[in-house]
């Protein structure tokens, strides 16, 4: 159903109260993959949630270091359940990501700083 959406007022979706749903495009892809795979029955939501809780708990137990990123843990949980189920191993993801990192410049902005913090457009060129 597509209800007519009010674009004004505090209830206006989707950026209600002035907030973006996703801060960076990769967050939306990580979100979409998890929901799609759950709906396809690749894993249960309980399984994914347990992995997410474990990832967040590990971050909270670790000494201060990596800055907080909810979707980084979400992605980690997704990788964990897929590796646990034998669907995609962490090594495969790493190898493919390394191959993607070797693409000619202009494809990504990841030069040595990988924190998903407030400065996604900050790259030293």
């Amino acid at each position, binding site marked *: 159903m*597509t*209800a007519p*959406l*009010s674009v*004004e*007022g*505090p*209830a*206006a*979706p*989707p950026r*209600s*109260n002035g907030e973006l*749903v*996703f*801060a960076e*495009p*990769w967050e*939306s*892809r*990580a*979100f*979409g*993959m998890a*929901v*799609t*795979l*759950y*709906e*396809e029955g*690749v894993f249960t*939501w*309980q399984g994914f*949630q347990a992995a*997410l*809780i474990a990832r*967040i708990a590990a971050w*909270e137990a670790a000494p201060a270091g990596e800055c907080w*990123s*909810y979707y*980084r843990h979400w*992605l*980690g949980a*997704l*990788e*964990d359940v*897929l590796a646990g189920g034998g*669907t*995609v191993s*962490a090594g495969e*993801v*790493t190898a*493919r*990501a390394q*191959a*993607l990192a070797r693409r000619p410049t202009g494809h*990504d902005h*990841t030069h040595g700083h*990988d924190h*998903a913090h407030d400065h996604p457009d900050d790259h030293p060129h």
Partner: protein
Amino acid sequence: MTSDGSAERLSPALRTEALEQLLTERGLVDPDAMDRLITRYETNVGPLNGAKVVARAWTDPAYRRRLLDDGTAAIAELGFGGPQGECIVVVENTATTHNVVVCTLCSCYPWPVLGLPPSWYKDPAYRARIVREPRTVLSEMGLELPGDVQIIVRDSTSEVRWLVLPERPAGTEGLTEEQLVPLVTRDAMVGVAKVEAP
């Protein structure tokens, strides 16, 4: 844990792209279908759905009773459902009792009625502090509650997603359901704000 040092140095954007490629090659995800899913959550699934539920409950006493009795079923009556909406429990804020929602372990949230959670809801500080010192945190977020109002912190579990039915503000008795909808904010339905009369 499946990480090692070299893997962690790859940005999440690269790992996400790599994972999507691998899953697409295996026929497990369809990038176009994912585009549609993401667009749906960015444009259609949001607090407006919850606001419609609240406005209906304020204007239809029988619906309010059904909503408090079985949130998921009453919300489905308005056409809202889906992932994270399987077990929604609705709790009512009154002049004497104030419910506020958190998920201390991960950030569970009733997507079908509120969309995806805002960053402060996922923040470690909110998740830890709202349980320990709810009155202080609510005050910092701009909600001063009288000392005699009982605060109940609702911690989501793997099964339950909480939705707060805010108190209808005084002075709105003459408004219709449609006129009430825009007054209902996401923050009021999480319990970190009240609904204000226009």
